[in-house]
């Protein structure tokens, strides 16, 4: 139940933005640029939200850089592709709005903030589908390097990623290939950049957008967590927030924009809404469903609640960030030659090289007889060929085997150590090795899609992501259920206004990013579809709220 208007506001503004990620910062910038007085509340001491720990790509079909390079694209092609992926879980109108606005939004940001991008070589996540783009005509933009010293003392407020802090661009990463040839990375240069305050990846998005807010003198109030909405006559007019152990009331005469993430760190909400567990989210441990609860409090209709941006993770026991176990995202490791993923029966159950959101889905498959998740626990299995050539998490090729990797001289012994079916594993590996020799994976089509090859080793012949497992020592690492964030929440109008159960806008309440019912439905269009949709609906919400 929403809170009633207090006798006196502790803080007042016109547009109040909750959250400082890819949705909140553009919302604040656009609300300001459209004439509103803006305030941002951030629950932590750090600015950047989930975006700050991400890869920082933005999925922008038909963008200005593509045009400059002569890469042809059209809204119609992107629409065909997005509709195929979303499978009806998102409205055509919302998808169309995204595709209409995303090139305009990114052009606005480039023209009016310090953020800069380059075209990457990342294909759409299903480049084989109609309307999709291949890597040589990529729709994913990558941020350029950004000097955080531009922020002055405020640079200390930036959220820093525990795993994506290496300051290199997408194109540099493609050139050096730290996942295949880490010895080619100029690590001293990376060290110098870090020491000199240079950031990239998600920091290449959040730091310049934060600077844009500072330049506009937008007030960002840290350590202030909004927990409920204040309503009067069916209209949202502010929030109640926790600050220094006290509840304060913040008035917002033009609107409140929920941009404070999903609920992947809230056990109760996950149990209530998701069809399976997310045990090891890769986002900061701050997304506890605050926006969802505020939306429900205001009477919002909810959508896409069973969906999340899936991402398999793994842990190095004892490695912590923000005082808790760090969950590391797994991506290139599973895509490299000489590595497969198996279930307790020792059987493969997924195309290991498929895009992260989609390859996550079989991890939630339920056995109809036992009613247990049939593929859990799942294990990545690889051999010495892999270990000699490629990194696995922080274990670098040629360096000692860390204690957190299970190792054995035979597959049988390895299976015994990780308590999976040894005969099943042996049979699976023999079959897979045969597929490698035939250069065809008839079971899971690994390597058929261009996307599968992106994270592989293009020196590996004949296929960048297929390689035998035959050379002892054999290794195993448990694959855990991570997530980049949930993507269900309040349903919105095309301008980001939250709607009620009858489809009527709730005046004064907006949602964007992982706080809203996502435009992507259950899918993931391409690299940066998360940040792209966050930015677009933050942008639209900021404009709309400012004009009230």
């Amino acid at each position, binding site marked *: 139940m929403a809170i009633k208007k207090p006798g006196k506001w502790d803080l007042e503004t016109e547009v109040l933005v909750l959250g400082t990620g890819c949705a909140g910062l553009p919302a604040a910038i656009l609300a300001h640029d459209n004439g509103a007085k803006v305030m941002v509340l951030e629950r932590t001491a750090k600015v950047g939200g989930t975006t700050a720990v991400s890869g920082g790509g933005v999925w922008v079909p038909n963008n200005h850089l593509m045009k400059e390079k002569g890469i042809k694209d059209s809204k119609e092609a992107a629409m065909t592709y997005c509709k195929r992926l979303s499978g009806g879980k998102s409205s055509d109108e919302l998808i169309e709005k995204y595709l209409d606005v995303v090139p305009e939004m990114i052009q606005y940001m480039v023209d009016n903030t310090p953020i800069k991008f380059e075209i990457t070589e990342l294909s759409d996540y299903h480049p084989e589908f109609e309307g999709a783009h291949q890597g040589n005509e990529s729709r994913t933009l990558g941020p350029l390097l950004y000097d955080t010293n531009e922020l002055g003392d405020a640079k200390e407020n930036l959220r*820093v*990623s*525990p795993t994506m*802090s*290496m300051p290199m661009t997408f194109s540099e990463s493609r050139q050096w290939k730290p996942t295949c040839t*880490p*010895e080619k*990375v100029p*690590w*001293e240069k*990376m*060290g*110098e950049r*870090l*020491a000199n305050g240079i950031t990239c990846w998600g920091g290449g998005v959040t730091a310049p957008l934060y600077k844009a807010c500072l330049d506009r003198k937008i007030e960002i109030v840290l350590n202030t967590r909004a927990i409920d909405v204040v309503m009067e006559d069916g209209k949202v007019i502010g929030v109640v927030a926790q600050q220094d152990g006290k509840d304060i009331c913040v008035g917002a005469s033009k609107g409140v924009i929920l941009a404070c993430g999903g609920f992947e760190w809230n056990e109760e909400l996950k149990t209530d809404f998701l069809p399976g567990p997310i045990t090891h989210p890769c986002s900061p441990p701050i997304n506890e469903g605050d926006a969802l609860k505020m939306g429900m409090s205001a009477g919002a209709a909810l959508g896409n609640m069973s969906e999340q941006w899936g991402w398999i993770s793994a842990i*190095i026991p*004892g*490695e*912590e*960030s*923000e005082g808790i176990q*760090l969950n590391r995202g797994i991506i290139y490791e599973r895509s490299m030659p000489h590595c497969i993923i198996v279930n307790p029966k020792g059987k493969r159950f997924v195309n290991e090289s498929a895009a992260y959101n989609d390859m996550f889905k079989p991890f939630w498959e339920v056995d109809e007889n036992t009613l247990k998740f049939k593929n859990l626990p799942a294990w990545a299995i690889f051999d010495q060929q892999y270990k000699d050539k490629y990194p696995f998490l922080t274990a*670098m090729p040629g*360096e*000692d085997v*860390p*204690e957190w990797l299970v190792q054995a001289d035979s597959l049988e012994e390895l299976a015994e150590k990780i308590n999976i079916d040894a005969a099943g594993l042996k049979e699976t590996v023999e079959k897979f090795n045969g597929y490698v020799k035939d250069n065809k994976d008839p079971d899971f089509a690994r390597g058929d899609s261009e996307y599968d090859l992106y994270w592989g080793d293009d020196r590996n012949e004949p296929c960048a992501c297929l390689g035998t497992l035959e050379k002892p020592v054999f290794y195993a690492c448990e694959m855990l259920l991570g997530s980049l964030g949930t993507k269900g929440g309040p349903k919105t109008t095309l301008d980001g206004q939250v709607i009620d159960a009858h489809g009527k806008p709730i005046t004064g309440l907006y949602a964007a990013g992982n706080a809203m019912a996502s435009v992507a439905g259950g899918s993931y269009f391409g690299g940066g579809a998360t940040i792209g949709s966050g930015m677009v609906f933050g942008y639209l919400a900021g404009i709309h709220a400012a004009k009230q």
Partner: protein
Amino acid sequence: MPVVEYKCIVKAPMEPVWGFVSVIEKWAPFLKGYEEHEELNDKESVWTLKGDVGVLSRTVKMKVTITNWDDEAKRVEFELDGINEKATGGGTFIATSESDSETELIFKLEINAGGMIGPVVNVLLGPMLKPVAKEMAEKIKARIEELQG
């Protein structure tokens, strides 16, 4: 290689200061992130520490070897060798009598992360070392002064 040196004046004569720092058990818990240490012999020990690298925290096991223990010069030198992380280093403890009631304590520590990404880890380690050295030296100083009444 990240290096830090921290000096402080302990308001106590040399003998109790040296008596305190000579017994590792007395000051080991003052080292930030200290979890445990096991003495292998009178020169070698294995230390388990939880250390910060940027926004990451990892449990590190280091072998510490005393290379020079000079009771006369009041000087201890040691070497560090990472067991579960690629890192080497060393350090010194020096106590110098300033007067009958004051002793200068100098703690020097250097750590060099190895492996392919060592240059990056060293950048992150650098800013972490000074507060660690300062905190430990100040806690030792406070404890000795407390014991002196």
